[in-house]
């Protein structure tokens, strides 16, 4: 079977993101970039499905500027067989991303698409659900456990009430939650090997994707700052402080 995995290049999760003074965006010059953590989990899950004995070709796909090749090379080093970059310097919002992925999914004849449940830059949590809609196939979102048998996935989903288990027929879209797995570390020899794996660059125009409507960001502002930092000496002082704030 063929598994497509989304790999988004984002500001690394450890960076404390700063809003630009002029409100036009966030500071990204010279900031550490990486693979969206949920997407690493997506790729790891694809690799594990294969390692558990299912024959599978695993294709990593990304949308964004030429620099995304770095993240795709990492994905190849982790174990993806080949990579597709739909190169664009536009801001790609979830509906557009879903339309592009849908084209790739049709071209590749995918059986399973695994995406992160959200990207830690725009925190939208939409692309997987949208792709499933356009493809008119099932979605199993926020997955923390996946079992695979006879063209059916049994997926445990992290929901507000606890854990929900659903069964979906392939082809399907899966989106990952953090507890699905712990991604492997890339080893040096694998990085070398990844250099010779195929990485194809495409243009959105070539795919014939109709441009999706967009949200227009008119201003970026830092969140209201909490003024914390006060410490008390001991438990009685803590109780007094709580009373003072009218909490007790």
């Amino acid at each position, binding site marked *: 079977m063929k598994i497509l995995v989304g790999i988004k290049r984002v500001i690394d999760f450890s960076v404390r993101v700063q809003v630009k003074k002029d409100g036009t965006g966030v500071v990204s010059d010279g900031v550490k970039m990486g693979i969206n953590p949920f997407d690493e989990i997506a790729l790891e899950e694809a690799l594990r499905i294969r390692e558990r004995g299912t024959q599978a070709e695993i294709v990593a796909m990304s949308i964004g500027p030429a620099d995304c090749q770095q993240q795709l090379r990492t994905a190849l080093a982790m174990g993806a067989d080949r990579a597709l970059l739909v190169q664009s310097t536009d801001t790609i919002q979830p*509906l557009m991303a879903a339309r592009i992925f849908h084209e790739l999914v049709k071209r590749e004849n995918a059986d399973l698409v695994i995406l992160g449940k959200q990207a830690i830059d725009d925190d939208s949590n939409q692309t997987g659900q949208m*792709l499933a809609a356009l493809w008119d196939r099932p979605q199993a979102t926020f997955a923390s456990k996946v079992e695979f048998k006879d063209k059916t996935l049994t997926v445990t989903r992290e929901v507000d*009430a606890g854990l*929900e288990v*659903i069964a*979906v027929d392939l082809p399907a879209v899966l989106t990952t939650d*953090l507890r699905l797995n712990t991604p492997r570390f890339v080893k040096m020899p694998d990085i070398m090997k990844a250099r010779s794996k195929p990485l194809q660059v495409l243009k959105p125009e070539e795919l014939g994707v109709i441009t999706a409507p967009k949200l227009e960001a008119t201003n970026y502002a830092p969140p209201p700052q909490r003024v914390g930092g006060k*410490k008390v000496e001991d438990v009685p002082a803590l109780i007094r402080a709580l009373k003072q704030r009218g909490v007790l």
Partner: protein
Amino acid sequence: MNRILVIAEHDGKKLNPATAKAVSCASAVGGEIDVAVFAANASAMAAAAAKLKGVKRVLKIERAENVHQLAAVLTPQIVKLAAGYTHVLAPSTTFGKDVLPRAAAFLGVQQVSDVMKVIDATTFERPMYAGNAIVTVKVPPSPCIVATVRTASWQACSEDGNAEITAVSTDAVIPSHTRFVELKADVSDRPDLQSAPRVVSGGRGVGSKENFAVIYKFADKLGAAVGASRAAVDAGFVPNDLQVGQTGKIIAPELYVAVGISGAIQHLTGIKDARTIVAINKDPDAPIFQVADIGLVGDLFKILPELEKELDKI
């Protein structure tokens, strides 16, 4: 005039309090508000929704398939129902996050996630980068606006309304490719984490599942709900539905007590709207102290029993 459709969230028995928050957001947009209840038997939830202030009509969409709130089942019906509405809203809970983008894509609409504030009927504020940036977005109004509502940013509307309840049917075709198997939910008589006025959360510092008893005990004393950091959930101390943060629950209690939690950005995202944050941590340099209104440095296993004793005196 705006016509707003709010998708109700429920568990088949009761309306989820997040629905009343989504209605507050709808009122901020302004216009005629309808609430849609998809269920096998919607009576109880429809009656509760009819009380939500500002709601004009409650639409009951009763169908055997609607017994479980599966995105694949609900979206074809939402898409049919959406015709004629300017806005379709749902709470930004795991339910709304699952269902609404699927509907938005069918409608050809770029969804707005996690609306914190309504500037006008087509302009909203939403968080990005784990809440480190608040972005104002202008949304194309046609064919309609689809948005999820960040519940921690909204108060529940009052319940003195009296909307009319109408049964509605759609001719939507429901796929069979997605099937509900089971819900594993911990039944607890403790307050609900998402709506409780007081929350006590434990982190990796609590050390083990057994040790978490001290958190539960202290929470019970305060009448508080229990939460946790991702590290505590990952380590198996507590179930996943207790996770607070960027990828867990975003909450806004009156009082939040963080015990043995370091205060990673992703955790803080979930508690920014808490009125008072208390931190108990043995490391005086833990980042949680920078946001805490009241910090106490020390060993949680000493401090919590002492606190309980002091609380008994009040």
